């Protein structure tokens, strides 16, 4: 297990593409792992206190990581526990393993994720499980659980996997979604634009696009793309 703690207040954001894999390396190698600090490429030890305890594929991030981005990018297995907040792109393109964020997560949480599990105990910002700009497919597998609220753009162009939000969410839920499941226990804004398939369940209020058919099962659409997505009350 590897424990990281920021040594300084970051003047600008840090980009640290660390995955649990790093915890299995020897300490010297870990210290020299390269991260970006503005335009500088620096060694991990310059910015973080590093403690290694055994070889478990697990990283614990202690302190404020809200200015640290790309944590768990492309991770395949193991575990990352963020004790506080985390910066954007956390768990993006993740294939497996588990990330637990005890605070809030920033934008692009689990973007284009294909497997594994992300749990956020606080809120998540925007673009949860979305495709990066220009890409045709967002999340394809795995699960994202947000115990608080989420912002705009959730599960856009989603093609598999599940996103569950215990609180409320913003606008554009499941836009152009093709497959998979989104569950929102609270309320949200615009839902289902150009949805082709998949399922969205909502506990509270929501604003559906006016191109869905009302059926016994729920709302089916978006008819504008001959979609067969289903939106139901939870």
């Amino acid at each position, binding site marked *: 297990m590897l424990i990281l703690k920021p040594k300084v207040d970051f*003047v*600008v*954001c840090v*980009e640290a593409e660390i995955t649990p894999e790093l915890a299995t390396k020897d300490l010297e190698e870990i210290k020299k792992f390269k991260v*970006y*600090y*503005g*335009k*500088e*490429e620096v060694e991990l030890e310059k910015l973080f206190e590093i403690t290694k305890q055994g070889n478990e594929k697990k990283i614990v991030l202690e302190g404020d990581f809200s*200015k640290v*981005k790309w944590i768990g990018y492309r991770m395949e297995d193991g575990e990352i526990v963020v004790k506080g907040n985390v910066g*954007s792109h956390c768990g993006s393109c993740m294939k497996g393993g588990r990330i637990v964020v005890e605070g809030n997560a920033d*934008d*692009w949480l689990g973007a284009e994720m294909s497997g594994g599990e992300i749990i956020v105990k606080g809120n998540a910002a*925007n*673009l949860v499980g979305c495709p990066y*700009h*220009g890409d045709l497919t967002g999340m394809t597998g795995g699960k994202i659980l947000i115990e608080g609220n989420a912002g705009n753009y959730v599960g856009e162009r989603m093609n598999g996997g599940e996103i569950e939000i215990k609180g409320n969410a913003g*606008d*554009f839920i499941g*836009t152009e979604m093709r497959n998979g499941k989104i569950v929102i226990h609270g309320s949200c*804004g*615009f839902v289902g*634009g*150009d949805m082709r398939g998949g399922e969205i369940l909502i506990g509270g209020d929501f*604003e559906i*696009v*006016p*191109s*869905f*058919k*009302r059926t016994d099962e729920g709302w089916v*659409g*978006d*008819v*504008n793309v001959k979609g067969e997505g289903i939106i139901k009350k939870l």
Partner: protein
Amino acid sequence: MEVNVVCTFCGSVCDDGLFDVEKFRSKRLCKLGSSKFSKKERIKSPMIDGKEVSYEEAIAKAAEILVNAKRPLLYGWASTVNEAIRLGIILTEKVRGVYDQCASVCHAPSILAVIEEGLPAGTLGCIKNRADVVVFWGCNPMEAHPRHGMRYSISAKGLLVKDRKARKVIVVDVRETRTARQADMFVQVKPGYDYLVFSALRAIIAGNADVVPDEVGGVSKDKLIELAETMKNAKYGAVFYGLGLTQSRGRDRNVENAIKLIQLLNRYTRWVILPMRGHYNVTGAGEVPAWECGYQYAIDFSRGYPRFYPNEFSAVEVLKRGDCDAALIIASDPVAHFPKEAVKKLKEIPVIQIDPFPNMTTLVANVVIPSAIYGLEAEGTAYRMDVIPIRVKKVIDTEYWSDEKILEELIKKVDELMG
């Protein structure tokens, strides 16, 4: 002596202006253009911390700030020419900063929409010749682009559509604007509901009116059907849209849905769509970086190569997130035009300003470098809102350096400092 000038105020870039050099007065231009070509207070001299210095000293100080920053933000670029913008990209790449331009508080959501769906557009000349139906959606050219209607859209005399009578003008907005008063049809939408209105129109046009509820976004179904029919029956239609779509709820998705509507309409007849770009060369501020480094705005070079993440590299976000430690502001006034939370950061970090006029950013800038006014004192290339290149002219002499020259010297200084 009267000479032809190309107006460097708004995105219409009217090129038929006349300027009397002796009297320092323009003709034919609108209120905005006339203000551009009138005498105004200028920044008198380069300054460092309020003290007048030479261009060389100010540029040396600016270079030092940029080189010492961990991540400088280089923002603005909408009211300068392509030649300067290109140097700006090269400079940003060298100092590994963030390039962002005024579109990020203007039509940047349009770029996001274009990424999703493309842009089925036409030039203003094509629209004036052919468009028998013109829709202004969330834009108000009578205030923001005053000669647009006369030159290109509302009353322009075209090849196939000869005059105003032959053209149907529709305004869709949340309020009855001055432009709306000129329209044949006004559709009032509830603020923040344009997205839904586009979806409804798409459903009606594709023959799925049955699913559309009786009212969408404050617009009755009957009105929606009327609008849909008018659009479908046009021979050649044009939608101009503005910040009413990009700055309100829905932002990029509003535009994306509008583009999807246009795609659909092209299955039945011809339609094009164009953003009403604000500053005279805000279009160039996106086009130039696109060919120089692949993206239009919100470009980070910290890793030595360009990356595009508008959610974090657009200027407002960079400032709000505390993700820059110095800024160069050129041809723009973010202190006046950014939300106060972003302005706060600009007050805390070293700021370099390059601009002809004193403005609110001058009040927070540590290094101020005055520049020549393009279109009047310096020439260069600008892109009209429809991405048509027009050379803006130099019609009077000046002692002020052009942005191009300032940036050239700045790059030299940066090169020296970086070895």
